[in-house]
């Protein structure tokens, strides 16, 4: 396997060398592949519902009718060009969380004006509360947009890539950097080229901190005296004092003296080639050497906008390296970009990512047909994400009956789709986050770099089913202010029980409810004389039904 992979990778490596200098400007953007509408089935409530369940966070009231009007291909064209979709709803939902999206340097200055050790206990407590509120705002800003934005495919892909390039909100300065990571590294590239996404994440301070590359240096390298304070925030004086303070000794003990393999390994295993991508432990070490010097500028000493990427030439290992048969003979930061280009162009990456996309959009164990179609589109367009998405949705596997209503929603998909189904906006309390916490999928809180799994095997268990029923009850009975208020227009109060059941099926379950679910709802509302109670029960059962757990 390893040997075969190396051989197959070699030809593309030769192209890399020529192309690397202008890797961003030089390659023209590939337009979305023109596809005949014949590749898609006719839009009816069933196909529209399937499309919106997979490529959006579920249908909002009116969405199914819209897809029926513009067709499957028409909707996809719209969504693949999100800048042309007016999105006042998304902007309004984001408004309460403007704080979270401010410049990371400003956030640092405002929320952590001094190291905790320099604060008294009251100030430290205030700081902790502030940081907690900030973290909640960062999470809510993501959830609010997933629910409200009309650029739904962009939201879905932003979530997909954020999870693929996972960072952890609670690791050090990533408290201030994670929202910026999503806004500057992920979202602008979520429907663009994979290589741009890869470079943007590699250079973003949130990733450099999360996978420790910011501190990885060539063995024996020493920062120039002037730069030390900025390089690691150690506050080291320009000249070593004769009797260093304990703090200075501690800082010296922490100063990096060599490489750290963390980013190098996860770059190959998770971000690009995949764990079976044919690399060795020695390749991991060589990759880590190539990325020595990719670090961050320390913000305390600088103004806004300076919480950024910084390449430290002094920390770079300029010796000869070899990764998967390709030599790197020094070249500073450029050899890192060369390597990223090589990885982005690798067939192993195309297959790994195509499989991951199909696992999200088609089935937990995706059929070969859609994966092959995605790989072909990937290779033909050098990783144009829009082309790959078109190929997946055009694939017969996407529409096959066995893959419809067959994917168990992740907690995020369940919560977002439930709020959308009842035409609600996320309220600004933290209750929806509470539900996500209990279900185990708080945004940006996956500690490990693999991101949250997508599979039913991971998410479906006894406790989780009960938690979903409880959220269904809360939504239906108006215990989430701001969400249930729309029920009156969506499902008007009525004494006609059969009309109520029909309305709930159409509004909440896209008209796709099973007979068994409809029958149970009928039975359970039969003895509830109050129309308000009957509606709450019917909506709760619909949202808490097996039908709604699937997409």
């Amino acid at each position: 396997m390893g040997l075969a992979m190396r051989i197959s990778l070699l030809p593309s490596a030769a192209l890399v060398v020529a192309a690397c200098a202008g890797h961003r400007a030089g390659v023209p953007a590939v337009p979305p592949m023109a596809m005949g509408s014949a590749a898609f089935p006719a839009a009816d409530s069933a196909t529209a519902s399937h499309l919106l369940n997979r490529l959006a966070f579920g249908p909002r009231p009116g969405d199914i009718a819209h897809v029926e009007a513009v067709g499957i291909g028409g909707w996809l064209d719209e969504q693949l060009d999100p800048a042309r979709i007016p999105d006042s709803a998304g902007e309004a939902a984001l408004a309460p969380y403007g704080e979270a999206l401010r410049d990371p340097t400003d956030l640092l200055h405002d929320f952590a004006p001094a190291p905790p050790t320099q604060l008294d206990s009251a100030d430290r407590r205030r700081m902790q509360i502030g940081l907690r509120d900030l973290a909640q705002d960062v999470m809510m800003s993501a959830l609010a947009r997933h629910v409200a934005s009309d650029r739904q495919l962009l939201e879905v892909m932003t979530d997909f890539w954020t999870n693929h390039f996972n960072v952890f909100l609670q690791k050090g300065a990533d408290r201030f950097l994670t929202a910026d990571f999503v806004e500057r590294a992920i979202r602008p590239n979520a429907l663009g080229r994979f290589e741009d996404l890869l470079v943007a994440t590699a250079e973003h301070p949130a990733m450099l901190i999360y996978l420790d590359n910011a501190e990885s240096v060539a063995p024996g390298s020493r920062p120039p005296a002037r730069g030390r304070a900025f390089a690691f925030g150690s506050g080291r004086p320009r000249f070593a004092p004769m009797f260093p303070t304990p703090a200075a000794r501690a800082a010296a003990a922490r100063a990096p003296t060599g490489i750290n393999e963390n980013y190098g390994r996860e770059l190959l295993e998770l971000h690009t080639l995949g764990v079976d991508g044919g690399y060795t432990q020695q390749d991991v070490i060589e990759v880590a050497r190539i990325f020595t010097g990719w670090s961050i500028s320390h913000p305390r000493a600088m103004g806004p906008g300076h919480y950024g990427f910084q390449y430290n030439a002094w920390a770079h290992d300029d010796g000869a390296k070899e990764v998967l048969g390709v030599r790197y003979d020094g070249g500073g930061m450029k050899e890192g970009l060369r390597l990223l280009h090589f990885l982005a162009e690798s067939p192993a990456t195309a297959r790994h990512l195509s499989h991951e996309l199909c696992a999200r959009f088609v089935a937990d164990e995706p059929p070969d047909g859609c994966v092959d179609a995605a790989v072909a589109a990937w290779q033909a367009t050098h990783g144009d994400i829009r082309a790959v998405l078109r190929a997946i949705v055009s694939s017969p596997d996407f529409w096959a009956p066995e893959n419809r209503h067959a994917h168990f929603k992740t907690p995020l998909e369940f919560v977002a789709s439930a709020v959308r189904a009842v035409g609600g906006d996320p309220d600004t309390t933290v209750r929806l986050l509470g539900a996500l916490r209990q279900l185990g999928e708080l945004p940006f809180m996956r500690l490990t770099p693999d991101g949250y799994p997508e599979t039913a095997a991971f998410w479906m268990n006894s406790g989780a089913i009960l938690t979903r029923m409880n959220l269904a009850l809360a939504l239906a009975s108006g215990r989430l202010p701001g969400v249930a208020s729309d029920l009156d227009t969506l499902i008007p109060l009525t004494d006609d029980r059969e009309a109520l059941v029909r309305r709930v099926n159409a509004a909440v379950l896209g008209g796709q409810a099973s007979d068994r679910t409809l029958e149970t709802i009928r039975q359970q509302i039969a003895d509830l004389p109050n129309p308000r109670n009957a509606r709450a029960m019917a909506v709760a059962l619909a949202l808490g039904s097996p039908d709604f757990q699937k997409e």
Partner: protein
Amino acid sequence: MIRRTDHRLSRRVFMKAGALSLVSFGFDPLFLGRAAYAQRVPGQSASSKVLVCIFQRGAVDGLSMVVPCFEPWYYRERRRIVVPRPGSGPEAALDLDGRFGLHPRLAALKPLWDAGHLAVVHAVGSPDPSRSHFDAQDFMETGTPGVKTTPDGWLNRCLLHDREHRETPFRGVAMGPQLPRALQGSAPALAVANLQAFGIRAPQGPVRDRLTAAFEALWAGQESGVVAGTAAESFEAVRMLKTANPTQYQPANGADYPPSPFGRSLLEVAQLIKADLGMEIAFVDVGGWDTHVNQGDGGSGQLAGRLSDFAQSLAAFAQDLGDKLSDVVVLTMSEFGRTVTENGTAGTDHGHATSMFVLGGAVRGGRVAGRWPGLSPEQRYQRRDLAVTTDFRDLFAEVVARHLGIQQLDAVFPGYTPGPDRFPGVIA
């Protein structure tokens, strides 16, 4: 007492079904089997043996938890993250047996060692060379190193060994929002994120009962397959918890659990054990061991804080259980260890063997089991990591054989035949 008359047959039948049963969403022949599980026969006595598995996710540095104080290479390779020799100060290793020393932040476990309730297995790990967290965790949880297609976890297969006897949804419980790979499979297992909030929530009892019945009716018989079985187990568990009423729980014997997620999980495990709901296997995850940076020494750094919480929680658990500890074995595990040599950022990178703890009344404690491979470069795995001298399956097999009484080890660890001659000898 466990009836053993016909467990072979039922196990065989069930394993056959298990092989087909990757948790799928549609049709699943196991539905009937799973529904049958969810009927507890009142008054049926259950075996009181409990195995508590603790997974230290992220690859804990076994050399820091249990330090080889006799190894010059340990002190040579670790300058900035060294745990000082025993007797050299308050942040020094705590001598265990004249050779190995416990990390000072694990001090809460020392009384258990002294009382003979705690054993260590050192240089234990997987024969598979992967340094990927995720592959290595998978291999340790499926119990099949190197095989990625195993559909179920080894703890789930333990639950199949005599399925007639524990007809309770609480037989296998994971504390947390997800079922770990080790407990996934055809035997039912519960994930409990919060014991107090397990069930349909409504302010008044009658409303709660009505809503519970409505949701139960909605899911019952609706789906064939694991979904329906899972829902049936949920409602059965809710009923049993209501009867057992564990919400009024007070730890016994002055046990003081740290207010951490791990401490809270162990408190709930103790609750479930004392509530006598038939729990045979509990599983708790504890993370934060991937110490690539600022791992720290005996007194400070990333590892010290995690180890304090780890040891204090376990010590509180043992104290809380009191005499019940005689029926309980706690087994800790981690996907691999870390490099012998510290890295360039005062941490350690992914390695190979690590150390694991075995704690409980039936444990042959006070000893470090397993052959020590040595730490010189040529003694290391790939000249880099602590070599594996005990296959983790030998340790796990000993615990399930001698503590849970499972005889058919080849069913729990397919493709492998652990036997008494390979057991590290940690269970009496």
